[in-house]
């Protein structure tokens, strides 16, 4: 089977800092990583390849430096990597991004074989929208399964798939057909340690690089800023509350003394709580 995994290179959010004066993101020197949620999708794809045979193609859209993320994906064992990169994609919102990626997936299908499953992470850690996966599915007319906790079975001959999907109050068991798009829930598997062979292969591999034209995209009005219905009008730091927290002084007091003082302060500010706690708490 042929599986396409969409990944994104993101800044390691733990290391992002905001400039205290200008309120802009200080990106310089912030290391990039593969969006952590995408690794669950990649691992699931590699497991399916192990069980059913076939190939895993990783795809990303981004600046030339996004090649690093693709090479990392190859070290985990992906067979092939495609980088969609073109200045015309700059400023893409989720609608424009899903357009470009869906065209690239069509071109991947024409070039390397039609995919049976397209995977994506649940969301990215920098945008957190969870919109690009469903967008790709709709653009390609693929059946869509988001927040998948488990792929219960795949029958390649019958073209059938059953998945366990997270819903608000439980797990849905769904039976459907290939091809489909799946976004994997976090924590459903653990990315493998790539083999030495994979690492060597990744270092030598040629990354497939496509411009918009090479990916078969003719209508540039659907790309980048022009293809994005949403506009970011303002970026700002949240205002802080006028008054800071009232500090309970620790000087010359025991932890127990301060604890009593804190509880008194809580009940002074929220008198109803004491009553509720007396009946509900302390079980």
């Amino acid at each position: 089977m042929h599986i396409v995994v969409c990944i994104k290179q993101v800044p390691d959010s733990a290391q992002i800092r905001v400039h205290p004066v200008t309120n802009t993101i200080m990106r310089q020197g912030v290391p990039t990583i593969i969006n952590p949620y995408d690794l669950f999708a990649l691992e699931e794809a590699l497991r399916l390849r192990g069980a059913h045979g076939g190939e895993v193609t990783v795809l990303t859209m981004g600046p030339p430096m996004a090649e690093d993320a693709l090479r990392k994906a190859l070290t985990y064992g992906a067979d092939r990597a495609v980088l969609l990169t073109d200045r015309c994609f700059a400023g893409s919102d989720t609608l424009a991004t899903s357009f470009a990626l869906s065209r690239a997936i069509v071109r991947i299908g024409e070039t390397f074989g039609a995919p049976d499953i397209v995977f994506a992470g649940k969301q990215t850690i920098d945008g957190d929208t969870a919109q690009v996966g469903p967008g790709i599915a709709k653009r390609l007319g693929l059946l869509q399964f988001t927040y998948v906790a488990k792929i219960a079975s795949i029958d390649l001959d019958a073209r059938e798939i059953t998945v366990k999907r997270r819903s608000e109050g439980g797990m849905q068991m769904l039976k459907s057909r290939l091809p489909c798009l799946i976004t994997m829930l976090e924590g459903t598997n653990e990315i493998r340690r790539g083999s030495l062979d994979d690492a060597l292969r990744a270092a030598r591999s040629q990354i497939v690089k496509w411009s918009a034209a090479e990916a078969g995209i003719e209508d540039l009005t659907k790309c980048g800023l022009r293809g994005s219905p949403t506009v970011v009008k303002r970026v700002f730091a949240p205002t802080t509350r006028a008054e800071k927290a009232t500090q309970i002084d620790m000087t010359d007091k025991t932890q127990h003394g301060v604890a009593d003082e804190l509880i008194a302060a809580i009940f002074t500010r929220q008198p109803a709580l004491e009553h509720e706690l007396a009946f509900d708490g302390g079980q």
Partner: protein
Amino acid sequence: MLKAKREAPPSAGRGGIKKELPEHFKDYRHVWVFIELERGEVHPVSFELLGEGRKLADKLGIQLAGIVLGPPGDATQHAVAEAFAYGADLVYLVEAPLLADYRNEPFTKAMTDLVNAHKPEILLLGATTLGRDLAGSVATTLLTGLTADCTELDVDVDGSLAATRPTFGGSLLCTIYTLNYRPQMATVRPRVMAMPPRTDKPVGHVIRHKLSMTEEEIITKVLGFNLDRQSAKANLAYADIVVAGGLGLGSAENLQLVTNLARAIGAEYGCSRPLVQKGWMPADRQIGQTGKTIRPKLYIAAGISGAIQHRVGVEGADLIVAINTDPNAPIFDFAHLGIVTDAIRFLPALTEAFTRRLSPHSHDKLAS
């Protein structure tokens, strides 16, 4: 990406942020809120959105509609009645047996058909697993803008929806517009907006719409549904009291100090994002922008520094108590009560003090 947007030349089509709504979008009117009905229950986020939708509709001088998609029966009729009770002026209803369980195909079809037939200006959905699955499909089908996980919704002077959400992993906020497309779509996570008061408003105008789809046309079939165990974890977002731990606790073992306090006062417990990333607590206990948003009466944060990503998830709490060794930790900027001390030492003392104070025996003494 943001930089590119700011520097967009006027030739880019929208002149950066100039509004030129195409003629065919000009008759799009009214605010719609998707009433999320799953397995017979309306998700409370729908009511929170009706509260926000009411404000937007009043500012714009237009109507607020609830969108109910469900199977024929009492649960769906109840959802219609609740939509009115929480402020809707009218309800659009699609009732069909194949809407009994959530599936992307029929729900997307029902929603996009409704939008194309009745043309709303603004469409709001809850950012739940169902709402996000649906919103992405609907926005792509309609080729319109969708802003996820908004923390503030407003209308600007020319009537555009100004949707504010955290960006860059929650370190900054940004305000996003969908200028030249309709409807303007946005999702909001549960508990981010306050629950509006419920009134006894009777059921009003209901506009019924047929679903032009048959079961044969739907490829995906529901084989079953496994309800989550009635563990407390599902209640974190709606708990009255929450205790949470952060990196300041130093080790996974010390999370016991948090759960001990939670048990003593009948609270739910959670943690900040780094603890989930370290594997110290499961993801469904994470509190913050990418985890659960909470609005408890009392929130106790132990060893949490208070990054913006955490802050936006807890700001709705009535009373925030912060315990942290660093007097300059950002959590003290939005907490109400602060104690600069080591949570590892303080939590046991606090647990003991609460237990003493709340035991029936000592309570009688205090009352007398």
